[in-house]
């Protein structure tokens, strides 16, 4: 997540040593804007958490709709591969 955040803030970065030393493709050290990297890391983490929550909500919604159509839990599992 942090590496992706670094890449989003500093697109020239291709490597990160010891979580601190960032370099471009030519091996030049890239000075990181830590405040921007931290903010982007937080944004990506929130985005990921939201995606996980949305997936769970979609799954529950799909289950409820199938159940309302009269399918049993066993039938829903057989159909979808999950509860």
């Amino acid at each position, binding site marked *: *997540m*942090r*590496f*992706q955040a670094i*890449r989003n803030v500093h697109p020239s970065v*291709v*490597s*990160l*040593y*010891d*979580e601190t*030393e960032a*370099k471009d*493709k030519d*091996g030049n050290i890239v000075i990181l804007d830590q405040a921007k990297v931290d903010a982007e890391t937080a944004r990506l983490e929130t985005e990921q958490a939201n995606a996980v929550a949305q997936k769970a909500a979609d799954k529950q919604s799909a289950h409820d709709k199938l159940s309302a159509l009269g399918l049993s839990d066993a039938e829903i599992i057989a159909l979808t591969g999950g509860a």
Partner: protein
Amino acid sequence: MSKLNVDTIEPEGASTTLTLGASGDTVTIPSGATLSAPGHVIQVVSTNMNTTFTYTGTTYSDVTGLSLSITPSSTSSKILVHYDTVSATTGSYKYFLKVVRLIGATTTDLGLPATAGSRILGQIGAHGWNTVAPDMVGSFTFLDSPSTTSAITYKVQVSTEGAWYLNRSVDDTDSADFGRYVSNITAMEVAA
């Protein structure tokens, strides 16, 4: 203390065994002297890398920290090169590793398979389609014949699609669910 100057010491009579010293004794080869012992390891250099490294790029690039230098004592010596890695990757979970030899400004690939169309050649690699990103162990050994007494650098290089993480998981959350690891490279000079 006495000093014996001879060219050859051989077992006596029909014996084929020559013994130097006795149990508890120390037999010393002075620093700077060369022990000629074909097939024996006469020098070992190793680098344990316990920090993390991350890379993205589809061209081979050096893995910072996973390299070493060794200077053979003879041009006839072999160098047994070995490296181990623990890594993980995102994207399509595709990565390739290789070790190269650097003498002066000349870089040479070592121990790669034969060219096979547009396939990427590596010594260690992975290519998956799953949605999980397991931590993967890789290991490679190669017997090199560098034919030099110049300093040699052996370094591991990586190519990947997505991001490749060494000595850590893709998710590096600070919790007991995740780990940190150690990778290493070792070179042993074997007398010829």
